[in-house]
């Protein structure tokens, strides 16, 4: 489903990714762990097509399409979804009109009919309820005045509405209390299906107890330094990245 080969990418002229190779099959959940500054977020931005993240070598093939040739919104249409580490507040844009514009854009891209206002409202309410999210939040502008946990739930709400085939979660666990973490994990698990994959980027093992990965990769210095199953995450939690000869730059 997703095939990343020899991916090199620079940010502001500085090489961050130095030959990433990664294969994700349909229905698989992969976790990417790694010390801070190893290029985890850069990989998520390169996948979603953010400006300023320049691919200098390698390729990303997604469902037989060259992802790097697609614009940001086209990648979303193809089913790539990035749950942001720091979701942005957008004053003046109402949450409901944002969600509806987004959902209909993706439906149009897929050649599906737009959702009616009534059906949309029902869908949003039901989805918010399943994520234990107060739907009063959605009367506010996008993410404005949301707590950290509410912003992350809002990311998962969007993911649930858009039903991506590849969900990339960029440190979705950071700053979450245990209840929020569980709610977010439940939301992600609810989406698991034979034709849907996920790439879970995280610094800690904690989230992976709730979203159990099929594969765990360690990204270090812009390359995949180790690959294993969920046991690798547990070992890293116990022994730290030093066990791989890596230094965790984060002050723990």
């Amino acid at each position: 489903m997703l095939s990343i080969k020899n991916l090199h990418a620079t940010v502001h002229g500085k090489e961050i990714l130095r030959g990433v190779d990664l294969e994700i099959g349909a229905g698989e959940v992969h976790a990417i762990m790694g010390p801070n500054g190893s290029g985890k977020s850069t990989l998520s931005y390169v996948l979603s097509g953010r400006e300023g993240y320049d691919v200098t070598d390698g390729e990303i093939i997604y469902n037989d399409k060259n992802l790097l040739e697609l614009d940001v919104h086209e990648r979303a249409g193809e089913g790539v979804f990035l749950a942001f580490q720091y979701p942005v507040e957008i004053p003046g844009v109402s949450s409901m009109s944002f969600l509806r514009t987004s959902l209909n854009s993706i439906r149009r891209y897929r050649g599906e009919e737009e959702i009616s206002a009534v059906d949309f409202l029902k869908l949003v309410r039901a989805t918010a309820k399943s994520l234990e999210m107060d739907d009063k939040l959605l009367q506010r502008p996008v993410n404005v005045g949301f707590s950290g946990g509410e912003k992350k739930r809002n990311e998962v709400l969007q993911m649930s509405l858009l039903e991506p085939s590849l969900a990339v979660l960029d440190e979705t666990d950071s700053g979450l209390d245990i209840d929020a973490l569980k709610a977010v994990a439940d939301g992600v698990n609810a989406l698991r299906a034979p034709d849907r994959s996920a790439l879970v980027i995280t610094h800690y093992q904690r989230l992976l107890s709730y979203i159990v990965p099929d594969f765990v990769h360690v990204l270090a210095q812009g390359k995949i330094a180790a690959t294993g199953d969920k046991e690798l995450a547990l070992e890293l939690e116990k022994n730290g990245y030093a066990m791989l000869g890596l230094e965790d730059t984060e002050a723990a």
Partner: protein
Amino acid sequence: MTSSVQPLTDPVIVKYHEQYAALGTQLPGSEQGWVTSLRDQAMLVAARIGLPTRRVETWKYTDLRPIHRAEFSAVVASDVAAPQLDPYKLDDALIAVFVNGCFVPALSQLENLPEGLEFLSLADAFASGVKESLEGLGDVVELEQPGYAALNTVLMQDGGVCRIADNVSVEKPVQFIFVSTENSSAELHLRNLIVAGVNSKATVMQSFVSLGASSGFSDVVTEVILGQGANLRHVTHQDQSATAWHIGLIAARVGRDAQFDSFVLSSGARLARNEIRLRLDGEGADCSLNGIALVRDRQHCDNTTDVDHAISHCHSSQIYKNVLDNRAHTVFQGRVHVAPDAQKTDAHQMNRNLLLSRNAHADSKPELIIHADDVKCSHGATVGDLDQEALFYLQSRGIDPETARNMMVHAFAAELLEALPEDSIRPYLENAVSSWLENIVSVEEAA
């Protein structure tokens, strides 16, 4: 007709003086001494002060010479079919239509005016010979003020005179539509008067629109008087042809405990100035002046305000937002003056500019002049482009770049639009903003 004491040297003033002399009895009200004397007096002032150059502080950023150089024709009668005006009409409103500056009763909707609301065209009010119907005319505007105030008084030809009786609340909005016909290149001197009686309440909107391209010049002065406890909402929508010229002045006096709200949406004309000069005259007087300017190509839009806190316990707030595309230029000059005795004044002003193109230019000059010591005052200005992070966020959710950008520009204006009362004016203005957005071109240029 008197002539000025000094010889006239300014060629622009000479031209207007000749025009005034030539029009003579064709000007409405010329058969009445008091009107002629008002015009003569104003001609003397105009001759003395001339028209402002950019050396005059309040005109520092707006150059009137292109207007002086342009050739304008006399007012010509033109037929307008009623359906042509439909897009500009408010739903369920009392509507006065002026075509090329002349009131046209047949196109207006002024039947069954509610009790306590009086409407007359300025020309009809002059013709009636009833001086009381024009009570207040010339009382608010300062002729000496640099600009067109004096010349407007010399040459005023028509406009709306709207009077709301004491304790009367007018439910429906009153709308003056000033329409320029296609290819019109007339110079219009429009004069409006709105008098809101004690504890009265009303909404008055002025719409300036063009039916096709026109290169005319509208000089508009609106005098507004709010009696004690009156509540008047005034909305200006200036959407004239991009080859037209528009210089507007609202001069208002706000009485004790009265509330004056002004909203200006300015997207038309090659050069537009929307000036508001306002005096808070009685304790508890309150005003909010908000505006949005949407400009592109080489348009120039100047919003200038002057709020005089003449007395204590008054409140004023101003938010002006400008969206600039291509090589457009906006000006915001906001001046708040707090008199020595005006303690407990609460005055705030803010100007925000959104540049969609690196070639656009915004000048902003918020200014507070405070002579009292127990006041709450603030002012500020910002200039920026679209939030790239937010644009990426929207696009990462499948929204195409153009829609994402329009959502962001609309969001910039939304703060002011959403604060408007939920009546027929709000969707009218929202539509006007949306239709402007459909024509943005500079997305790549700004990036």
